[in-house]
Each structure stands twice: as C-alpha cells, then as structure tokens.
C-alpha cells in the first residue's frame, strides 16, 4: 500500500483531448476516463441528451503523487476557468504488488 492523491476532474466533453494531453504533460502516471457524464453547475444543466457533444461532460480520475497532483491542479485551473467544471483532490491508499 502506498499513499497517493486521487485527483478527479469534471469538465466539458469537447475539451477531453486537451485535458488528457495536459494531464500527460503534468506527469500523470495514468488516468481513467468516463465519458457521457451529465451535470449541473454554474452554467446550468448539461444534459447529455443533445445531438451535439456541447452539453456533455467528461469525468477523469488520476491516482498520483502529491507533486504531480499539484502540477495537475495548475494545469487544469485555466481549463476550468474557461470551460467550467470541478477538480477535487483527496487522499487514498494504492494497492500495488
């Protein structure tokens, strides 16, 4: 078991590729992506029931070190500012062999 940071990001689906590239640049050792997230926030309801991806969100989970988590936070902040969403950081233990 090893202490890690769990970083969770939700933002607009159209930024998915840009977000993942930013995560890799920030040194994320891996990530898991769940598409087709719906949501509600400052920009109203985002329905995932539309004909375009514009109203769809994406959810990404990263397990990483404190260091990388900070770099991710810095990289994600401008995306959140421009397109909306949230980024949560919490603690976890990672099971590894």
């Amino acid at each position, binding site marked *: 078991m090893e202490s890690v940071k769990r970083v969770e990001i939700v933002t*607009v689906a*159209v930024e998915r590729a840009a977000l993942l590239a930013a995560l890799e640049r920030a040194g994320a050792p891996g990530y898991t992506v769940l598409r087709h997230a719906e949501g509600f926030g400052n920009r109203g309801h985002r*329905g995932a*029931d*539309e*004909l*375009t991806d*514009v*109203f769809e969100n994406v959810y990404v989970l990263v397990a990483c070190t404190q260091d990388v988590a900070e770099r991710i936070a810095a990289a994600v902040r401008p995306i959140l500012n421009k*397109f909306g969403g949230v980024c949560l950081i919490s603690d976890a233990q990672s099971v590894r062999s």
Partner: protein
Amino acid sequence: MSFLADNLLNPPLLFFILGMAAVLVKSDLELPQPFPKILSLYLLFAIGFKGGVELSHSGVTPRIAMVLGAAVMMALVVPVYSFFLLRGRVGVDNAAAIAATYGSISAVTFITAGAFLNATGIGYSGYLVAAMALMESPAIVVGVLLYRMARRERSAAEKTDWPALLRDSFFNGSVFLLTGSLLIGAATGEKGWEAVSPLTDGLFKGVLCLFLLDMGIVAARRLGVIRKAGLFLAGFSVGVPLVNAALAIGLSRLMGLDRGDALMFTVLCASASYIAVPAAMRLAVPKANPSYYVTMALALTFPFNVLVGIPICFAVISRLWG
C-alpha cells in the same frame, strides 16, 4: 391555410409533434443515446451520397456555380447583419454566437423540406446538397471574426486558436461526413447508388420519423429555458428566418430556379444551426451562453420552420412562380 394542414399529415412532422407531446405529458419516452447521433450520421450520409450521385449527372454548370456562390454569400451576409442587430442587446459574445448560428444551416430542416416537397410530388436538384455543405462553415468564421474585431481593444491576452477553429468549422464531424459522402456519391455515380440506395433511400423517410421524434423531445425539453432568452430573442428566432427566407426567395427568382430548388435554397438560408455551430462556439467564444443560441435554434426556429415556415415559403413560391 390548407397547406399548413397538409404539412401536418406528413408522418415525420407528426412524429415531431409526438415527441413534443411526450415531454408535455411527462412521458419517459426517449431515444437512448447514442441512437439520435447515429440517426443524424445516417441522414447526413444518405443525403450527401444522393446529392453527389445527382451532381455526377448534372456536372457543375455555370448556373450551378452561381447558385453555390449565392449560397456562400448568404452565409457570409446573414451573420454580419445579425451581429449588429444583436450586439447592443445581448453583448458581443452572445451576438457573435447567435449570428453564426443563423448564418449557418440545419441539415434536418433541409431534409424535412425535402420530405415535404416529395409529398407534393416535386423534386429538387442534387447541387443544393453541395450548397448546404458549403454554407455550414463560413458563418462560424465570420461570427468569430466579428467577435475578435469587437474585442480587439479590450483583451489582447485572450487569443483565438485559429487552426483549431478552422478545423472545427470545416472538418467538424457533420460537415466532414456530408462533404465526404457527397464526393463519394459523385465519384461512384449510378453504380454506387445502386449499392447503397436500399439503405440511403428506402429507409430514409422512416428514419426521419424516428429522428424527428427525438428532435421533438429535445426541443420541448429546451422550451423551458426559453423564458431566459426573453421576448427580443424569441422575436429574432422567428423574424430573422422570415427575413432571410424573403431574401432567398428574391434571389431564387433572380437566378431563375425552379420551384423545388427555390424552396430548398430558401430553407437553407432560413434555417439555423444547432449542431456544428455550438461545438465551435464553445471553444472560440466560450462566454457566449448556449442556453441562448442553442435554445433559439433548436426550440424556436427549428419547430417554426418545419411546422410553419416551410409550407408558407412553398405557398409564396408557388404563387410567385405562378
């Protein structure tokens, strides 16, 4: 007004209304994702292929080139005048996004008009599909240009990522599939048509029913947000398409189009985009509020056009053309 009633006996239209009714009575009917996206890809593929095959017969004559030119011109002019109409009321961001929305086109409105024509026994020429493909993107670029010009002084920091924007405008999925299918249809001609027509032609109307059912559901759900837009924008959603339609009818007359082609050209000018444009605007003008421009295009202009606009335009054209 019998032409309005006739229009309503068209199955696709009735399914659109059924979709709206489902939301009204709070039915849980919905077409599960990604079924609507698949239907929409199918429609673009089918209409593009068909248009291409017809183009392979007609070739691109000077007359056709002229109509295509007129189409692009409308796609450039409409966002400009719309922008100046709007910016005082809703700010530069929303004005740019709405302007692009009304300059671009809605393929489903075009397709529904085709089904309407078809039911009256009239056809239209394949090059209008090419006109549609050409009109989808330029308005986006104009909208963003207007936005950048109005913003210049204020924010030097904020920069448009032009390569990304052009990619989103010209190579966005729906434009790309429509254009690609058109080219493949043109390249393979009658032989290609034979191979794919049971899918692209036989099923077309039935699929359109299912797609409009979904459009009805989505449009009705969005109707709730319309109060936010306010009376001015609601008026815009109906008025500007009518103005554009009038312009287009005049141009059609000048260019000597026949009735079917005139209707389809008119519908392109009068329709507003809710697929390609929003996707591009999110990136280029992120502060524009999609609750405005998507709702206007989807929940007001689209239903207005398919329920009322198309039959009215056709009645006017029929009368003028004599």
